[in-house]
């Protein structure tokens, strides 16, 4: 009898936690996509909460300090780590993406301060929604500049 009381209490807590996790997951799920996947998805992608990653193309970065509007393009980078590994690492994959004009690109618009890490060949992970004009309206902007061991090999030219 007493034992059951605790089992019941435990079950209630368990149910509550499962509910919390399930409902919160549903409410805040963001679909991870690459630029290619986004283009493929077409009209389906409009309005969905998305998390898009790609390589920042340096010469497309525009910033209007009056309105704090940041605009730039990102190029497709594969989401598959094995492929990235095969290309010689993330930094190399980003480099290839930026310098390959045949890659699909998406324009990102973000309103806010210009992040310090935004530069050519950075990996951008943007959270937001695609609007009807095919422009990605980002609410959050995350940047990674990979500095990996392989690239840590200095340029030979720096030798005296």
């Amino acid at each position, binding site marked *: 009898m*007493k034992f059951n*009381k*605790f089992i019941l*209490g*435990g079950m209630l*807590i368990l149910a*509550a*936690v499962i509910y*919390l*996790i399930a*409902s*919160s*997951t549903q*409410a*805040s*799920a*963001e*679909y*991870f*996509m690459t630029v290619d996947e986004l283009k493929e998805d077409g009209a389906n992608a409009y309005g969905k909460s998305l*998390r898009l*990653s790609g390589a920042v193309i340096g010469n497309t970065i525009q*910033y209007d*300090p*009056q309105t*704090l509007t940041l605009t730039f393009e990102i190029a497709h980078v594969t*989401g598959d*780590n094995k492929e*990235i*590994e095969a290309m010689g*690492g*993330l930094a190399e994959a980003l480099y290839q993406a930026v310098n390959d004009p045949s890659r699909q690109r998406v324009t990102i618009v973000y309103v*806010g*301060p*210009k992040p*310090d*890490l935004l*530069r050519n060949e950075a*990996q951008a*992970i943007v*959270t937001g929604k695609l609007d009807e004009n095919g422009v990605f309206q980002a609410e*959050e902007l*995350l940047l*990674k500049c*990979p*500095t*990996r*061991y392989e690239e*840590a*090999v*200095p340029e*030979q030219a*720096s*030798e*005296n």
Partner: protein
Amino acid sequence: MFAEFGYGVLLVSFIVTVYSGIAAVYGAMNKSASLVESARRAQLLTFPLITISALALIYLLVNNHFEVAFVYEVTSRSMPTYLKVTAWWGGQAGSLVFWSWLLAVFTSAVTLRKWDRDIEFLPWVIVVSSITLAFFLGMVVFYENPFTRFWLSNGNVVPGMFPPSAAATIFTPQDGQGLNPLLRHPGMIIHPPMLYLGFVSYVIPYAFAMAALITGRTDDRWTRITRRWSLWAWLFLSFGLVLGGRWAYDVLGWGGYWGWDPVEIAAFMPWLTGTAFLHSVMIQEKRGMLKHWNMILIILTYALVIFGTFLTRSGVLSSVHAFANSPIGPFFMGFVSLSLIASVALLIKRWPELRSETEMKSMLSREALFLLNNLLFMSILVVCFWGVIFPLISELFTGQKVTVGPPFYERATGPLFAGLLFLMAIAPLSAWGHSTVKTLGRALWKSFAAASIVTVVLIATYTQNVYAVIGFFLIALVLFATLHEFWRGARARQKAQGENFFSALANLMGRNRRRYGGYIIHISMALMAIGILGIEIFQKETQGTLSSGEELNIAGYTVQYRELASWDDRGAGVNYTRAIVDVYENGIYLGQLTPRIDYYFDSQQNMTIPGQRSTFKDDLYILLVDWQPVSTIGATFKIYVNPLVNWLWIGSILFLFGVIFAAWPENDPADEPARRKVTRDNRQASAAD
């Protein structure tokens, strides 16, 4: 020369560690005291060995030996010496050495303790810590060697410990890349060591737990010996987390302190199990219950510590997929899995011997509420873990990678944290063994009434936001109930001993350090919760581009732009751009703030330092976002007002005090017989009623 020397010593310490583990196993199996003693000495030897190797690394760092790849990666000529030293833990290879060194410090300290009463634990504690140390040293020696150098071979620069070909010569770059400027902040200099201290200290209680399982000495001896260890471990881990938050707030320039990033969660998860352990271990000591549970918690904490060490230092981490990118990732996952399997197998073997001595009877008894507290901590852990692995799961089942962001964590953990606050208010008032709604109500009603009054006032004057109201009510309840406990205890002692109130309070606290230290920690948690609610719910922001004399208004503040200056400091390798703004509140001049942007030439990176004005009421947090280089007339600002956030930092200082108070050595309580404590505590609790 120093590189070969450092590497050689590292290699020797790896061999010594492996020997120590093997000798300890054989010694324990064959009951050979001399072999165990030999293992113990080998264990002690690892500390000076790793220290020497670390000193060699520091020598290389400080003296600009850029031919060493690690030195090249994390230092540059323009960095001051102290930063070159702290660059030791600024990269993966170095921080693994640092981790190993800390572990050697702790295991040496442990092996030097008086072992007479627990001599059967000794070999197994050595085994567990040796295996852990050998794993980390092995990673360093074979995969992440900080002494790797650059070689010029056939016109190519290649990294390697030894010359790749006979003709190869050492290649020395002119200057290093320099430590990421974001990491050159005082908070970031002490944040990793604190976190690591916390991580590493948890190896010791785990080692004792495993020793208890292996030897079959399954009483609460192991928890008594390691009680203070786990308290210090918890202190360091907690403080490491807080420092990380403060660093983010001061340096990252997004007006926040915590972003539910996988790396942060990786450090947070062992804290959750560690905190649960801290509470449930008390139940084992006082009531002889939850023995299985404590084992599970310490095993989990250990596994999460190893996992966290790896995750926080694996470099690129945009998703959980990233750890496949690191060459040492699979080894870490393998080590975590193996230690989990071995620990759980041991636990299952000893399962019947760990049965509870008492049965849990009342739902409102102290032990039941502690158990509930543990369940809530575990639930938060499950939420965090789910959030981190969700992309993997969804990809596995739907083929689509779906991720969850901060809103997920906030929504799912919010009610759980609220539950913890509520427990924090009521659990200290409940009695061991048996409590009813009536007894609990009698102890709580005054605090409940006081908290209700505060809440009504808040609703009338400050906020009608439902989450904030619930949060503030719970916080007020914790504060009143806990302060009331101090009051009641001191009053009871005052009457019994005829002391004046303050010496009664001081004596009461001094004699029950753990209990009152715990209460101080609860108060500090409530204060931190005020800060968290403030910034999470009431944060305001505005932004705009101003020319000189123009102003922005936000939440009663007026920020007026004065001027901007930009200059180079060639010696430090930094360009500073600093704006000066005047700040008014409701028309009254408060002073100037100087938000700035530092540009580091060596790493070509900006660092945005906010201008902050901090009060108990709120923080004014001004970021210089952009400026016009030509005219220096216009500058763009982003301004946050973060209400109450200061209480987060005030609370964390009080927290530090509370833990030190609780952990401060008194006459060794480990030597007191277990159950006498219970009766003494009961008497005091009833005296306090």
